[in-house]
Each structure stands twice: as C-alpha cells, then as structure tokens.
C-alpha cells in the first residue's frame, strides 16, 4: 500500500463518499445522482465496462472503496460526452470518471496494465520533459509497451505508414535523438510544480 493510500484510509476510514467529494475532481457531484441510468445506457462503450457510471456512483455511496479504485471501468471512458449531455441532473460524468481514474492512479491502485493508463502515463511523461509532445518517441514507447519482441513486430507492421509520414515531412527521424522542446523548459517545470502544490493543498493530500 502506498503512503498516500494509507494516509487516505486513515483519514477517511469508511467515509468513501467524503473522500471522493474532497479529493476527486468534480467529486462533489456524486451525491446528486438519482440513479436513472441514462448515462450507462447512453455510453457507446457501455457493454465493455465492468461497472457503468451509475453503478460506480452507487458503489461510492456504499463505501466500496477498493472495488471502485481498482476497477478499470473509468479508464474505459473515451470522453464522448454523451452522458454529460443527457444527464437529467447535469452531472459532469465524464470529468468525474477522469477524476476517479486520476485519483486511483495517484494512490497506486489503478490496474497496472490497463492500456489507457499506460498510454496516459507515457503521454504525460513525454510531455513534461520538454514541454512538447515528441510524437516519434511516444509512438515507439507505445509499440514496446508489451515487451521487446512485440515492439519490433509493431514497428514492422507500421513501417509503411512511418515511411509515408517521412515522405510527407510529417515525421522527422532525428527527433529520436534530441527532439525540439519549448523555449522555457524551466518555466514549464516550475508551473507544473506549483500546480501540484495547489492541488495537494486543495485536495488535502498533505494531511
């Protein structure tokens, strides 16, 4: 169990709803759900979710902390916004799903090999290094997420597309070595650090 998780458990004990309200983005909306089921029925990926949003909201209220935070359900969200548009109570469901996923990740409870989580992590780490996404490195990292052998296979499969992109000057192979960043790398790092601090104090991560 990570320190942050142990801390959270100690702080909120059985009151998982309160934990979500305080620490998850838009979490204060969860109590507004009236269990009509329109979000779950409207979700294009609904059949692939272990727990549809409506059920997740009820599980949060029922205090089923581990089941919610270790679930891969909220990672299935593709941000199509059907649920937000249709929710009769105007809950920002998409944002709550991302908030829950982010919180679970932060506590180290999110499923390790969930593809969306892997991609999001790669994307973020890639972005904060130079302040700019290096597309070549990002896609190569994604090819190799399931091991070296599969990575080579993936790269070979995409060979034609890669060459095409190079010809069209949409892909520069030299990006692999250095890659161009933004002008003020230090500034970006400082900004992100500050954002983390603000988030930690707002969401009571410190105590």
């Amino acid at each position, binding site marked *: 169990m990570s320190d942050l998780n142990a801390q959270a458990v100690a702080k909120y004990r059985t009151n998982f709803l309160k934990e979500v309200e305080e620490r998850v983005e838009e979490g204060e909306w969860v109590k507004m759900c*009236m269990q*009509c089921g*329109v979000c779950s*029925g*409207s979700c294009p990926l609904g059949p692939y979710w272990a727990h549809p949003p409506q059920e997740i909201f009820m599980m949060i209220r029922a205090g089923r902390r581990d089941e919610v935070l270790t679930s891969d359900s909220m990672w299935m969200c593709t941000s199509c916004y059907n649920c937000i548009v249709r929710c009769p109570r105007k809950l920002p469901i998409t944002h709550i799903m991302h908030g829950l996923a982010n919180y679970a990740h932060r506590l180290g409870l999110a499923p390790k090999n969930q593809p969306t989580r892997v991609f999001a992590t790669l994307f973020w780490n890639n972005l904060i290094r130079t302040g700019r996404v290096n597309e070549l490195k990002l896609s190569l990292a994604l090819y190799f997420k399931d091991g070296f052998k599969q990575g080579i296979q993936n790269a070979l499969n995409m060979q034609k597309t890669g060459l095409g992109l190079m010809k069209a000057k949409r892909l520069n192979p030299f990006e692999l070595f250095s890659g161009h960043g933004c002008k003020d790398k230090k500034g970006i790092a400082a900004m992100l650090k500050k954002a983390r601090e603000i988030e930690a104090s707002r969401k009571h991560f410190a105590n």
Partner: protein
Amino acid sequence: MTEIVATNQTILVVGGGISGMTAALEAAECGKQVVLVEKEASLGGRVSQLYRYFPKLCHPTCGLEINLRRLKSNPRIRVVTLAEVTGLTGKAGDYTATVRVSPRYVNENCTACGACGDAVSSEVANTFNYSLNKSKAAYLPHAMAFPQRYVLDPSIIGTAEAEKAKAACKYDAVDLGMQEETLSLKVGAVVWATGWKPYDANRIQPYGYDRFANVITSVEFERLADPHGPTGGKLLRPSDGKEAKNVAFIQCAGSRDENHLRHCSRICCMASLKQTNYVREKGGENARSTVYYIDIRAIDRFEDFYQKVLADPQVKFVKSKVAKIVEDAKTGDVVLHGVDTEGYHRYANAHDLCVLAVGMEPSVKGMDIPAEIIADSSGFLEINSATAGVFGAGCATNALDVNRAVQGATAAALRAIQVVNRVARAEG
C-alpha cells in the same frame, strides 16, 4: 360586434378548461358577474381530451356535463370562445383587459345539424385528437362542445368550399363576413387559468418521437383509447394499424430533467398506471404493459392504485430511464435500450408501441403575459402580492391533477371575490 357588459365588479377568467370553468362557476354561483374567455372554439380544455380519470377510472365527460349544466343555468357568466387576452393594464379593482376574438364564421343560429360539414370536402388536422386524424374544414370541435356550434376553419374562407358550407346551412348560421374583433373589458379581478401543454416530445432526441411512428405521447394515447378518438377506441399503432398488445411506457419524458423541464409533472406516473388499465381493457389477457421509471410518484391516496397495478401480472416495471429507442425497420417495432438500476442489467426490449409520459409545461411559458404576472423558474404563475388582483388557477400555477386543479381554482375564485367585494363596498 360582440357586446359584453363588464364593470370593475366583474371577474375575468382567462381559460375555459376545468380550472377556469370551476373558478367562473364558483364566483358566479356566489353572485358575481363573470366573463370567461377561452382560446379554443369550445370549453373543456385538456380534460375533455382524456378517456378516463384516475384513480376512479370514470369518464371526464361526466364531470364536464355537470359543469356545463351549471354554466347553462347561470345567467351571470358570459362565455367568449376563440378569444385571447392580449393585454392587461390597471390595478386590482380597476383593470382593463384587451381581448382579441377570432372569427368562427358561424353565428348563434347554428343548431349543430352538421349540414355544412357534409357539404365541404376539404379537411384539416383534428387538433382535438392531437392531429392524429383529420376533420372536415367545417366541424364541431368535439361531441360535448360548448357552445354546441360548428366552426369554419380559416383556411377555407374565400374559397368555393366556404360558399358550399354557407349554401348548405338552412338556418342562415354561416356568416363569412365575420372579422377579427378586439374588445376592451373593464374588470375588477382576474383569474388566470391558461392551463398546460404537453412538453414537445421532439426535443427528447434519443426517443425519436419525430422519427419513429410507433413512439407516441401519453396525451395521444388517451385519444387512441377514447371511443370518440381517431381509432374508435382501439389501440391501433400508427405505423401499420396493428393492435398494440405489448406497450412500453416511459416515465419522466421531459420532466425532472435539467435539459428539458426542471419540475416533476406529478400526474404522469398516475397517468401511465391508469393507461396500463386501458391496455388490459382493450387487449385482454394477452396484452402486456411495461413501465420504465426512475421512481413511481403515486402521491398519498394514489398509493393504493399503484399497489393494484403492481399486483397485476400483465404489468411489468423496469426501474430505469430508457437511454434510447431504435426502430426495427422490418416490423416497425420499437426497441428500448438502457441499463436497469436493480442489478445494472443491460437490456434491449422490443415493444409494439411506446408511450412517452410527457411532462406538463405551463401554457403561459413564452407567452406574452402582462407584466404584473410573475412566474417561477419553470414558468408557472405565482401570486404577485404587490398587485394581488390577478390570481393563477390550475395548471397555470403548478403541475396538478384535476382534483387539485379544481381545489386551486376554487381558492382563486375566493380571492377574486374578495377583490370585487372590496370594490363594491367602496362604491357603496
């Protein structure tokens, strides 16, 4: 020219539905002078378009008949139909109302013999049946219409059709020269009882009311069940005229939804529970109803009615707001998709016919109402204590069933009476 005697001891009632009729009758039976203004060609409003009432399942025609008899025997009420209030100025005890009266093209000589209707051949949408069928362009609004007089649709005026209607009339009742009039009435108090309208189901996009023939509204379903309706009382679905034996009811179609109507319309749960009785009454033992709901709001004494329907093996309840409807192009059946709340099971259920229990929208919403009248966030009227000479009644003030609308109308009449009594005392 319409002659109406009105003074500042007269009470003006706007709207001739069940609430307006009640307010007018109560005030007149207390000895007050009343002018009752109705937008349509006959009195009765939405209640006259219902097949049965809940919870007793009796027919609204019965109550309507009683009210009409009270009305006919009371000389203190003046009824003006096809009339709309377009302006209201002044203050409590001293209002001037502007009323626009549209031409009926038929005068008091009419005996409702129907010769004009037989003579014309062009047809217009029958709005009494929510345009589910057509009626002749010279028509009686409905069997119990009051006044019992025909109407010529304005679309045939100036054509040979109108001349045919005139030629057919033996009583010289067709008057093609009638013009729109504007009346100015002096009144002491106003009861505003303009009622409600069904929420526009086209706006609930995932339910496809605008795209699928077999998705209809609850008010349309009332007309299908009514023997005077477009199908002679048979539950024939619109796409192919097949008898509907497997009917779905979707609750909160528009109500309790921040994207549509914020409020609970209060009547729809009971209306759908009532309509499951129609399905059983018309379809026999093989007929089935399925009610899709968020929660059933059968308030106070209606709980018994709900329990009775709950015990009916031909009625199934699914706790879920339906997410979307798709049409089976081959059969015309509608397939309802969603996830239920009792177990989170994903379903795709096919039904012959789907009835949307549409919400109540106040008729005053978006209407050009006089500034003295104030409304809440849903558009329902509230009493403005600063002026307190204009009183809302019935569904103009809230989503109400008939029983509560009538109670509210009586209360509004009492308030209006107090205002004109004050005027009478001041005038000695």
